[in-house]
């Protein structure tokens, strides 16, 4: 791996080996649960259904998100660009 992964310790992590076209790659998804407000934009913009909404009693609208299957990720970075709360990091 050439690039440095800079995900803080308090982030949740998911890792998987993925294949984009014929190219083999590795993805690390970092997610900051305390900063997340559960708006669900990442679930909406993701073209591969990597994210899903789950119940969380401590949040204002009772929901946060989590990764269903990191192996589906194609590193399009849409969720990272469109998360308004600086909660998602993808390497």
């Amino acid at each position, binding site marked *: 791996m050439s690039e440095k992964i*800079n995900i803080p310790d308090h982030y949740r992590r998911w890792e998987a080996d993925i294949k984009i076209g014929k190219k083999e790659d590795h993805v690390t998804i970092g997610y900051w649960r305390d900063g997340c407000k559960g*708006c669900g934009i990442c679930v909406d913009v993701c073209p591969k259904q990597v994210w899903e909404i789950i119940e969380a009693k401590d949040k204002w609208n009772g929901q946060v998100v989590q990764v269903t299957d990191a192996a589906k990720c194609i590193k399009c970075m849409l969720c990272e660009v469109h998360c308004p709360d*600086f909660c998602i990091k993808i390497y």
Partner: protein
Amino acid sequence: MAFEYEKYLRMDKIPHLWCPGCGIGVVLKAMLRAIDNMGWDKNDIAFVSGIGCTSRAPGYIDCNTLHTTHGRALTFATGIKMAKPAKHVIIFSGDGDATAIGGNHFIHACRRNIDMTLVVVNNNTYGMTGGQHSPTTPIGYKTSTTSYGNIDPTFDICLLAKAAGASYVARSTVNKGKVLEKYITKGLEHKGFSVIVATANCHTQFGRKNKMGDPISSRKWIETREIPLDKARNMKAAELEDKIITGEFISEEPEQTYWENYNHPIHEYTEAYQGIIEKAQKKSEGENK
């Protein structure tokens, strides 16, 4: 590869106070990436905002920041730019801030063509104060002060800026974060007054009264109304009612005909002002001899 926003943020102030799914977060991220594309030192950037939801942004950004009075962000910014012409001045403003109470300052900053970048987050309402109607609320939509539907015609901020003499004008929406980044980068590179309008969602105050109370349906509503500028040129006015025309209204090369090139700026303001300072100094030196 992930972008490191922490470099430009005061992380002790994050999470921010904007509503869940607020478009301002997306625009702010696009702007931070654009600043990073320019490779500027944080000490050389002055970041100014007025009042409104967007005015919270300077609190979160770690550079020289100034939170000013309602509508007067551009006047404070003009002062900074004239006192310190080497600083890169960026103004983050809302539609109410830039076009309603600060409308006069907006057109005169455009007229002067002073080297600053204005990012207008247009969310079609006054979000912070309770969802009153703003100069960009579309006709027929309900707000807390227009309970039976708005009848006021709207401002097209891009055409207003173009006619007033701004030298780079572009518009995109929150659904296209990467395009916003491109336009803001171009605006920062451009020497002269640049206006970038980002149409954003306000589902909490505006959407809730118009049957789109969640961020997803609000963003979809914006997406369905987008029309690229090249396509819009050949369309009739009736077809373009309630549409968001996106694209670059003025880019680097000025267009040829008089009407398309109306009021194209002649010079950049701080450079012209430097010329006046030199002239006055020469004159006073001559008098002292």
